[in-house]
């Protein structure tokens, strides 16, 4: 292989290479390192800036500190019911069983959670959880989690490659053998031969115009895995969080934590009506308060830290349901001037609001001139999370490609058709740890050093340079704007077949434009050039979402089809969607039967097993 000297990639071999340094990546790296592996951790941003930092409300774990009746069994049931039973049941079980240990472990590494009156980790209620279950630090739990893991990784002396983007996985006849990428600061290429690779790159929110996600959420891991031959599952299930900011325009989509509703926030439409009463699903209505008075008693008991027989307020319905309710209120003309609804917590004492929701208080005061202790917020749905992702083995995070593992949001299966709030921080801890251990074990069992195919490296080097070298071509920012506008309009909260067909056609056209994209400027910290590689991944995952959404001709969880509004258990209740690369190289979509649930687990679902 002959390469011009400066473009000859740096080579940095590791036993285990973890791509992505949010909660899942950090947790995987810590576990792999503790198991004795030589670990490299690659991240697109500075360490500690990953999207996990944005998680606010808490981490779900059946510790039973507030509600003694809580148990992993109830957590399992809530997770499965919230996911409309499409979840990988073994993942949901492992998650519920192991989350408490993972939370306690964070405390042993220095995390400082809010406390109960008897000095233990405090837990708060959240939508879809039967009990107060979320360990939290005010409304900045994600920051606490990532800082704790970051400090732990530093203490273990894990090698971190900051501001480094992976653009290709290198494969051999027996699976993955490494990754190719470049330093964002210099633009120079780097190759990581690795015995095991862990993808922990998070979600895909940047495919949409209105999103709570940072720019990093460009579907990198899903696209890299797909290109390397792995399956993606459940990609039609994209969570639209019910409450994002809607005003001013620059912050549209920014997350308003569910903890606002967890602490008693009330949703009202323009006419002042508490509309969530009208949207509670009939089969779950008995779990919610019957009147404003009962809901108010629940809030009072919560704030006084005592038990109550009052049931929870209707605002704590699952996210898919609340998001559709808000969307419908706005569409039917009962929204606010800025196209949202009101979320009001100002009836609580100002001091309580500032103590429980300090970061929301700041966010609205600084960015929208709204004092949430004095009046309501304006909120509307925002693209937040993808339940689907890379198909993995529950125990190990092993994908369908040998040597390739995945954990956290990038992996699919855990959350089924809809994720409960608080279950993502616990997901990334539980499966981050499991995947890190499995990746280390796989690496220690590897007989030979990984072989990197020089042709693949040479192609990757050339692909990296191409957008800089083209004399003319399309603007990456323009392609991104068009993609986001199109996905928002055609593959949003409500979907219909003609729109999805149109989306798939437009994605092909965007892909053609992308193939001749031009990024002027040099290699050093060039955001336009960096965007080209993120767009590559965004186009792949957008197509996966559109094709899966078109295939599933029913409405379930976060996937709502206007042309198929009913849930169709006969046709769709028993299968997950699968995206894979077909023999002709084109993206193919199919289904795979749900994983069999053991009798013991099935019995836990009880009456809710429908």
């Amino acid at each position: 292989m002959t390469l011009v000297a400066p473009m000859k990639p740096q080579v940095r071999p590791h036993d285990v290479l973890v791509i992505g340094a949010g909660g899942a990546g950090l947790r995987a790296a810590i576990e792999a390192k503790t198991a004795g592996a030589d670990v490299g951790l690659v991240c697109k941003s500075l360490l500690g800036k990953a999207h996990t930092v944005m998680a606010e409300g808490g981490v779900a774990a059946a510790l039973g500190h507030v509600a003694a009746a809580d148990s992993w069994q109830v957590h399992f049931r809530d997770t499965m019911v919230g996911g409309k039973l499409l979840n990988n049941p073994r993942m949901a079980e492992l998650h519920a069983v192991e989350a408490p240990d993972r939370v306690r472990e964070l405390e042993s590494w220095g995390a400082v959670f809010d406390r109960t009156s008897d000095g233990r980790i405090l837990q708060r209620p959240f939508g879809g959880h039967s009990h107060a279950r979320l360990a939290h630090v005010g409304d900045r739990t994600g920051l606490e989690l990532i800082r704790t893991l970051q400090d732990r990784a530093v203490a273990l002396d894990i090698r971190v490659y900051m501001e480094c983007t992976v653009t290709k996985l290198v494969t051999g006849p027996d699976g993955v053998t490494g990754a190719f990428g470049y330093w964002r600061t210099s633009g120079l290429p780097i190759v990581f031969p690795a015995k095991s690779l862990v993808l922990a790159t998070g979600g895909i929110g940047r495919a949409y115009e209105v999103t709570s996600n940072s720019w990093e959420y460009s579907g990198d891991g899903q696209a890299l895995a797909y290109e390397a031959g792995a399956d993606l599952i459940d990609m039609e299930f994209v969570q639209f969080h019910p409450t994002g900011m809607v005003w001013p325009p620059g912050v549209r989509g920014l997350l308003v934590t569910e903890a606002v509703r967890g602490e008693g926030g009330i949703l009202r439409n323009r006419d002042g009506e508490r509309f969530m009463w009208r949207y509670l699903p009939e089969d779950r209505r008995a779990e919610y308060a019957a009147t404003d008075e009962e809901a108010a008693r629940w809030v009072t008991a919560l704030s006084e830290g005592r038990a109550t027989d009052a049931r929870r307020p209707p605002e704590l319905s699952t996210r898919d349901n609340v998001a559709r309710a808000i969307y419908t209120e706005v569409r039917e003309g009962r929204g606010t001037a800025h196209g949202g609804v009101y979320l009001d917590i100002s009836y609580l004492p100002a001091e309580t609001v500032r103590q429980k929701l300090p970061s929301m208080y700041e966010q609205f005061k600084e960015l929208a001139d709204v004092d949430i202790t004095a009046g309501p917020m304006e909120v509307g749905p925002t693209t937040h999370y993808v339940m689907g992702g890379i198909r993995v083995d529950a125990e190990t995070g092993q994908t369908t490609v040998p040597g390739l593992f995945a954990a956290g949001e990038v992996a699919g299966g855990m959350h089924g058709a809809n994720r409960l709030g608080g279950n993502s921080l616990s997901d990334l801890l539980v499966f981050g740890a499991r995947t890190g251990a499995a990746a280390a074990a796989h690496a220690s069992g590897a007989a030979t050093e990984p072989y990197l195919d020089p042709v693949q490296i040479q192609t990757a080097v050339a692909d990296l340079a191409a957008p800089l070298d083209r004399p003319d071509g399309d603007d990456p920012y323009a392609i991104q704007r068009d993609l986001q506008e199109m996905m928002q309009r055609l593959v949003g909260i409500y979907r219909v077949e003609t729109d999805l067909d149109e989306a798939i056609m437009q994605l092909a056209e965007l892909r053609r434009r992308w193939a001749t994209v031009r990024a002027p400027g040099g290699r050093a910290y060039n955001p336009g050039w960096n965007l080209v590689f993120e767009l590559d991944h965004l186009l792949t995952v957008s197509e996966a979402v559109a094709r899966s959404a078109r295939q599933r001709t029913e409405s379930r969880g976060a996937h709502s089809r206007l042309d198929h509004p009913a849930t169709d258990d006969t046709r769709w209740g028993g299968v997950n969607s699968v995206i894979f690369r077909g023999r002709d190289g084109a993206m193919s979509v199919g289904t795979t039967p749900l994983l069999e649930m053991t009798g013991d687990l099935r019995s836990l679902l009880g009456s809710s097993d429908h």
Partner: protein
Amino acid sequence: MPDAHLRVFRGSPGEEGRFDEFDVPVEEGMVVLDALHWIQGHEAPDLAVRWNCKAAKCGSCSAEVDGRPRLTCKTRLSDFDLGQPITVEPMRAFPLVRDLVTDVSWNYEVNKTIQPFTPPADLPQEDWRWQQEDIERVQEYRKCIECFLCQDVCHVLRNHETDRPFMGPRFVVRAAGLELHPIDQADRRRYLKDSGGIGLCNITKCCTDVCPEHIRITDNAIIPLKERVADAYYDPLQWAWRKLRGGGRGPGSTVELPVLQGTPAQPAPPTAVDPDQAPD
């Protein structure tokens, strides 16, 4: 609404930087980072800006706006007189990478020198109990989003080119979060005094002033730790006790702070970029 007029630093290490000017259409509620994104999307696709969450939660988009260290994602254009140009420059205390991006890796190296959380070996975790009021101070320190604006504004750091004798406010805050943790057992006093150089801070409170998380860095972190160090080293009783005990140089251990790699950016100070005098 009138356009905003931005003067944005452009340049790479080893070359003379310049200020490029852009007229940016203003929407209600717009922040400086929105304006920088508009410039990237319409005028200068390669303008280097570091950012992530755009919600003041990650601390990536630090820069100096009209000479003041700020998060560009929470600096609103409406706070400025739009009749005047708004000058955006990189943080000056760190080496330039390109345009508005600086190399902040020194901070990550300093962080590695701090002894991590050390719980007691003989207290089982199920017995850990503490009250909310016992941890409120620690939680204040842990609000830090590592934007490094306090490091940027700290004149002890600015006054030293590459061999920096002070860990800087950010890491005093981190150390304080560990030292004041209800059950942490480590003793970082000697480290703070000899390695961290806490004595060099002369409490001008510039760091507190620029902290976007409103952490009372000086009052609640630096001064209490200075007192702990003073108690251990300058209190006559403690001094006599150490002499009697015949042991070492005091509690805790020391380690060398890292050397800054590359020279700090330090583009022209804001006074020298008077719009009337600037080129173009």
